[in-house]
């Protein structure tokens, strides 16, 4: 008798089906005249959903574009329109889709307004400025303070709260829909629950063998990014948590036998997630990674929870702890914790030409891993959404040697 458990592959199918329906929902919203906002992957979906806005994230669409091997053409399209090839490949590919009115499931519907985040990174302000100009729609930029170290001063939090309230006012103006505090409270509660459940799944990756690797987790992230504040994200993570617990109970892992446990730093190569399959074929599992644990989830990774009774304060705290809003001392200590507590024996640092936020400071992190934990690192340079930047053959050759070195060192 087949039991009703879902394999990692089947969970991925559930997610893919939902992703399709999510994009269909945005298109439908546009058709029916409901407000559609573009926002960055760090956008405050909780607030937008609470106010009846359908949220569209071109960055997420870029990742789908990469999976379907369409990114190169869109990057080239943008470059032919004076967008420098030195700029972030999310922005280039996203702008290329916009200019050519195309995409992996057709062109995205036009936005009614855009919410960017000037404090997050250069593209998160300037990409949206170009987009807003192209569609001739209003652009709202959220700002925030930046802390090199962990300490949050009261005025940092107060400003973040004020920015979220300013956004609520802007959305009211754009949509004519009122801000209802109870709706917002519920969306923030759902987001907190999704993050807390996600944290439990991440905890389970400490088991040997690891029940979920980076390839599975970057897929899971879709719900934390695009669906934060919606019931669907909580349901999905509960389902994944249940299945993952069961896998742990049965001793099932991504690999039955782990030769090496790795820590991976930076965004995955969206056009080549097969690198994780190749690693698995070599007996290596990415037991913990920076991307799923520190970027959106930083506040929760650091032990925070939504427990202040004030939804604005909770959301502000989540924001202040995005990896984009903290300095190298915090990034470095997070990498040390992740690598140590998830039992990693080696690290791969992807030096991402597209993303200065996550890549500057990597050498300091590599040094710290080696000096404090004896963990050696391998680094390579590419771009997460531009396949022209990466050669799989060369990568395999170099990583193969690195893995052999790690295994020999353990002997």
């Amino acid at each position, binding site marked *: 008798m087949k039991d009703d458990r879902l394999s990692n592959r089947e969970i991925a199918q559930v997610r893919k089906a939902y992703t399709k329906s999510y994009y269909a929902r945005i298109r439908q919203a546009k058709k029916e005249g409901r407000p559609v906002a573009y926002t960055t992957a760090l956008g405050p979906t909780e607030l937008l959903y609470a106010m009846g806005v359908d949220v569209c994230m071109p960055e997420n669409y870029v990742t789908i574009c990469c999976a379907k091997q369409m990114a190169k053409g869109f990057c080239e399209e943008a470059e032919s*329109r*004076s967008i420098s090839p*030195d700029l972030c490949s999310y922005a280039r590919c996203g702008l290329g889709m916009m200019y050519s009115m195309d995409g992996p499931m057709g062109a995205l519907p036009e936005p009614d307004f855009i919410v960017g985040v000037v404090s997050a990174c250069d593209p998160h302000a300037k990409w949206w400025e170009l987009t807003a100009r192209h569609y001739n729609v209003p652009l709202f930029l959220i700002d925030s303070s930046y802390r090199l170290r962990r300490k949050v001063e009261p005025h940092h939090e*107060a400003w973040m709260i004020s920015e979220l309230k300013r956004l609520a006012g802007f959305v009211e103006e754009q949509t004519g829909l009122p801000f209802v505090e109870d709706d917002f409270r519920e969306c923030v509660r759902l987001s907190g629950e999704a993050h807390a459940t996600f944290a439990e799944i991440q905890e389970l990756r400490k088991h040997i063998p690891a029940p979920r690797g980076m390839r599975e987790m970057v897929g899971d992230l879709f719900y934390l990014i695009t669906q934060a504040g919606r019931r669907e994200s909580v349901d999905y993570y509960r389902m994944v948590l249940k299945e993952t617990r069961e896998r742990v109970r049965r001793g099932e892992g991504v690999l039955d036998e782990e030769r090496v446990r790795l820590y991976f730093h930076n965004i995955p190569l969206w056009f080549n997630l097969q690198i994780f399959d190749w690693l698995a074929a070599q007996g290596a599992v990415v037991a913990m990674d920076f991307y799923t644990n520190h970027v959106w989830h930083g506040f929760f990774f650091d032990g925070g929870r939504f427990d202040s009774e004030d939804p604005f304060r909770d959301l502000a705290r989540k924001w202040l702890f995005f990896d984009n809003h903290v300095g190298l001392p915090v990034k470095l200590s997070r990498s040390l914790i992740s690598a140590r507590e998830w039992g990693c024996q080696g690290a791969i640092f992807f030096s991402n030409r597209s993303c200065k936020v996550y890549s500057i400071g990597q050498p300091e992190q590599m040094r710290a891993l080696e000096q404090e934990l004896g963990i050696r690192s391998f680094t390579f340079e590419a771009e997460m959404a531009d396949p022209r930047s990466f050669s799989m053959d060369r990568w395999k050759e170099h990583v193969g040697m690195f893995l052999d070195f790690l295994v020999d060192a353990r002997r």
Partner: protein
Amino acid sequence: MQTDFRNVLKERHKWGLQHQENGGLVMGCYSAMVPEELMWSCGVLPIQFLMSPGTYGESQAYLPPYTCDCSKSILEEYLDGTYRYLDGLMVSHVCETIRGLAGILSVRWPERFVHVFTAPACNDLGARRYIRAELMSLAEKLQSLGAAPMSPERLEEAISLYNTNRELINEIYHFRGQNPGAVEPEQVLSAVMSAGIMPRPQHNRMLRELLKTIHKGPERAGTRIILAGLLFEIELAEGNNLFSILRESNALVVWDDLASGMRYRLERVEGSKGDDPLDRLVESFMGPQPAPLRSPAERKAGQLLKAVREYGGEGVIFLIPKYCDPILFEIPTLIPILKENDVPSLCLEVSGSLSEGQMRVRVEAFMEMLSGSSADSIWA
């Protein structure tokens, strides 16, 4: 008194070291969007990092190859001990690279004061309250480093001193715009950049002297151009090829919109005497900011067009530092807007592969195009 500001740039550490000898603190800063008036009022001399392109050695072990020369140059001089004398570092959030650099410095020298200052992109009560609290918190931090406590009287004096400085610089810009042949562009730019490293009382005296020496002579004929983007300051002191090429092409710089020292020219700390000076300083930090990251490109286009109208600019040359994302992101907006307004432009990458020969060919081609006056753009 000397009036050649290029000499000031050549002795760029002299002023900080003198200030320290007299018991003051010296803060290394990136971008003028930091509270210089507050620092000065507490006895701290803010000095801007001056950048030079070149071959970078040790910094390459810390910064990836796809970061700008500015960041590499600052780090290089930190690593080789040039900036050992600084009491701290304060950068403004003008790009991701500079925040990343601040992070590296705070990890490498944990005992040093490093601060990232954020001048809000927006302008509302929340931002105002934030900046007020941030300035007060900064004053406390400076005090713990040994600076004088904040006082309204001293802050009032500092604001007035810096405002005088802005007025004098504005006067030079205005004068040069109308008589571009009367003063060389290097002299004007060196004057602005020196503001970033000299104590303002001396700088003001030198500016007044400079103003006395430039007299309206007979108008020089030439093609009137505007420079925008970013220039490596140290090149001014040591002689920059661009300016000799411009001279030989009979180009007259009437205005510039270069990142260095923008706040010195554009933004006065306004308000009437008697108001709380801290409130006025807060107000001067309300968005949008002069830095490209923190203001829409349309605003910059408007400023360029205004200069074109006021000073008869015939074309714009953008100096674009390689890997400077905020500037790179602006170009696709600025060029079409200029074109729509019949203003041709030229984009020059100012670090990396462009040799003097290539620069000459491009600038000369651009100047020829300007004489044919078709509103087009050239990418170099």
